[in-house]
C-alpha cells in the first residue's frame, strides 16, 4: 500500500519539520512581548474600539517585531469575556488590554492570581499593583464644544443623546452646559437617554425627537456609530461626538470631535511593564496628558468664539482653568459647589447630578 506509506512518511517528515521550526521559536519567544486585547465591539472606522486599536497600533509601531498582539473583538461582557481573558493569559500573554468596564471583575481576578501579568482596563475603578484602569476627561473637550454650540444655536436650545445616565456621561453633559453658559447664560440643554449602549435606530429617533423640539446643536454622547451625526446632517443641525472624528458623515454640520488618543498612555504602560515597573492605579487622563484633544472644528464658529475657545483650551492645558469650579448650582437651584472651590477628580467622576440649565430630569 504505497499510498499509506507515503502518507505516513509525510506525517513523520512534517512532524520533524514542525519540531525544527518550533524549537528556535520557543527560544525566541522569550524576547517577544505577547499582548492580548479584548474589545467589546467590532473594530470599525470610527468609535470606541477603533480608538483603542489606534492606541495599540502606536505601541506596535514602537515595538515592531518584538511585540505580538492578539486582538479579540466583539466580546460580550460577562463569563465569556472572563474565559477569553484567562485563555489569553494561558497562551502566554503577559500584557492585557481589557477594553470595557464589564471586564473588570474577571480582570481583577487574573491580576490577583498572576502578578506577572499587567492589565490595562477601560473605565473601571478597582485597582491592583498590576491592574490599571483609565478614564478620559472628556469634560475638558465637551466644555469647549459647549462654547462653540452656544455661538451657533439660534433657538438657544441644545441637546444631547445619551446612552445611560452614569457619572461619566453626566459629567460630559454638565461640562457641555457650563461651556455653553460661559458664552450665553440663557442656553438650555435637553437630554434624551436611550437606555442602551447600542441601538442605532433608537439613537436616531432620539436625535429626531430633540430636533422636533427646536434643538439645533446635538451632542452624540457615547454612540459608537454615526447614527446621530448622520441624522443631524440631514436635518441641518450641528452635532459632535466623542472618541474619533465622524466628519465624513456630516461634511457641513460637523461641529467637531472630542477625540482621545490612547497611544501615549498605552505606550507608557507597556514600557513600564517591560521595565518591570508597571504602575497599578487609576489614570484620569486629559488634555494635559496628550490623551484628550479636539479637532475638525466647524468653520461656521465665529472668529471671536474661536479665540475664546483657544484661550480656554490653553488655560486647561496649563492648569489655570478647571471646568468644575464653584459656584455650581444643581437643577433645583441648590448650591452644590461653593464659590471658588474646585471639584476633586473623585467628585467629578462620581457626579450624579445635573447643573442648572439642563432641563431634562435625571433618571434616578
Amino acid at each position, binding site marked *: 500500500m504505497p499510498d499509506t506509506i507515503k502518507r505516513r512518511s509525510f506525517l513523520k517528515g512534517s512532524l520533524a519539520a514542525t519540531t525544527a521550526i518550533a524549537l528556535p521559536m520557543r527560544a525566541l519567544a522569550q524576547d517577544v512581548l505577547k499582548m492580548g486585547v479584548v474589545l467589546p*465591539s*467590532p*473594530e*470599525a*472606522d*470610527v*468609535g470606541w474600539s477603533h480608538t483603542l486599536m489606534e492606541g495599540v497600533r502606536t505601541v506596535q509601531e514602537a515595538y515592531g517585531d518584538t511585540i505580538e498582539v492578539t486582538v479579540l473583538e*466583539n466580546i460580550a461582557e460577562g463569563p465569556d469575556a472572563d474565559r477569553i481573558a484567562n485563555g489569553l493569559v494561558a497562551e502566554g500573554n503577559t500584557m492585557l488590554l481589557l477594553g470595557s468596564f464589564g471586564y473588570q471583575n474577571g480582570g481583577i481576578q487574573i491580576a490577583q492570581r498572576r502578578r506577572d501579568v499587567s492589565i490595562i482596563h477601560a473605565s473601571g475603578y478597582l485597582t491592583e499593583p498590576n491592574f490599571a484602569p483609565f478614564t478620559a476627561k472628556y469634560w475638558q473637550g465637551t466644555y469647549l464644544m459647549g462654547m462653540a454650540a452656544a455661538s451657533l444655536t439660534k433657538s438657544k436650545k441644545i*441637546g444631547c443623546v445619551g446612552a445611560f*445616565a452614569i457619572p461619566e456621561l453626566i459629567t460630559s453633559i454638565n461640562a457641555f452646559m457650563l461651556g455653553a453658559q460661559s458664552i450665553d447664560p440663557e442656553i438650555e440643554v*435637553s*437630554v*434624551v*437617554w*436611550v*437606555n*442602551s449602549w*447600542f*441601538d*442605532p*435606530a*433608537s439613537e*436616531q*429617533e*432620539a436625535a*429626531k*425627537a*430633540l*430636533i*422636533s*423640539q427646536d*434643538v439645533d446643536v446635538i451632542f452624540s454622547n457615547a454612540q*459608537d*456609530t*454615526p*447614527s446621530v451625526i*448622520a441624522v443631524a446632517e440631514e436635518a441641518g443641525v450641528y452635532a459632535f461626538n466623542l472618541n474619533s472624528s465622524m466628519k465624513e*458623515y456630516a461634511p457641513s454640520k460637523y461641529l467637531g470631535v472630542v477625540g482621545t488618543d490612547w497611544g501615549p498612555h498605552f505606550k507608557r504602560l507597556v514600557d513600564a511593564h517591560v521595565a518591570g515597573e508597571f504602575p497599578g492605579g487609576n489614570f484620569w487622563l486629559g488634555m494635559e496628558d496628550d490623551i484628550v484633544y479636539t479637532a475638525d472644528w466647524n468653520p461656521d464658529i465665529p472668529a471671536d468664539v474661536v479665540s475664546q475657545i483657544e484661550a480656554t483650551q490653553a488655560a486647561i492645558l496649563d492648569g489655570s482653568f478647571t471646568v468644575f469650579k464653584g459656584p455650581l448650582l444643581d437643577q433645583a437651584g441648590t448650591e452644590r459647589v461653593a464659590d471658588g472651590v474646585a471639584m476633586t477628580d473623585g467628585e467629578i467622576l462620581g457626579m450624579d447630578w445635573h447643573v442648572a440649565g439642563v*432641563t*431634562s*430630569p435625571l*433618571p*434616578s
Partner: protein
Amino acid sequence: MSALEFLLAGTLAAALPLLLAALGEMVVEKTGLLNLGLEGMMAIGAAIAFICVYHTDAHSLGFLAAALVSAVLALIFAALVIVVQANQVAAGLAVGVLGLGLSALFGKSYESQTISGLEEIGLPVLSQIPVVGPTLLTQDIVVWLTLLGTVGLWYMLNKTKLGLIITAVGESAEAARAIGYPVGLIRTIAVAFGGAMCGLAGAYASTVYTPLWADGMIAGRGWIALALVVFGTWRTGRVVFGAILFGVLSLGELTAQAIGVAIPSQVLASLPYIVTILMLVAISRHQTRVG
C-alpha cells in the same frame, strides 16, 4: 415641527421592521410551527441588503437579496424541524445565532458605513391636508407597499381557501394530512415566507430606516416582533395595531424626554413593554377564544 408631528411622521417607519417580521412569524405560527430565530434572520437580511445597496445603490435589489438569503436561512430551520424532526426551540435559537454570526461576518468591512435612504412619497391630494398630510401621509415607498401587502395577507388568510388550508395545517395537522394536503410542504413554504419577511424587515432597518450597517443593529427587535405575534393573537389587524402601538410608545418615550417631562427615562423606556403586558391581560380577559 411639534412633538405630535414628529410622532405622526415617524411612527410607521419605526413600526415597519417589527410589523414585517411579526407578520411573517404569524404565518409560520399559524401552520403550527414556532421559529425563534427572527433576530438572526433580520440581522442577516440587514447585512445582505446593506451590502447590496452599498455597491449597487438599488434598494429593490437589496430587499430582494435580503428576502432570499433570510428565506434560505429559514429553510435550514425547516429542514431541521420538518425533515429531521428536531426540537423547534433549539433549532430556532440555533438559526437565530447563526444569522447573527453570519451577519457580523459578512458585514465586517461595512461596519459603520452609511448609504442614502429612500425618498418619501406623499399620497396624492391627501398629503395636502395640514398637519397629517406632510407627516403621516408622507412616507417612503416601502411603508406604502407594506400596508398594501398587509391588506393582501389579511385577505389571503381570512377570505381564501389557502388561508383555510394554513389554518387547518396549524390546528390539526393529522386531519389536514388525512384529507390530502401536503402538510410538510405547506409548513416549509410558510417558514420560507417568514424568513423572507424577516429579511425584508432587516433590509428596511439597515437601508431605509437608519440607513447604516453596524453589527447588532437589530437590537432586540426580532424578539419584540415575536412577542407582537402573541400580542396580536395571530390576527393580522391586531398585529398591525400592536406594531404601531409599539412604534408610538417607543417614539413617545423619546419625545417625552426631549420635551422634559418629569418622569424617569427608565420608566418611559419600559412603557412599551408594560402596555404590551397590560394589553395581553385585557385581551385574554375579554376573549376566551384565542387564535
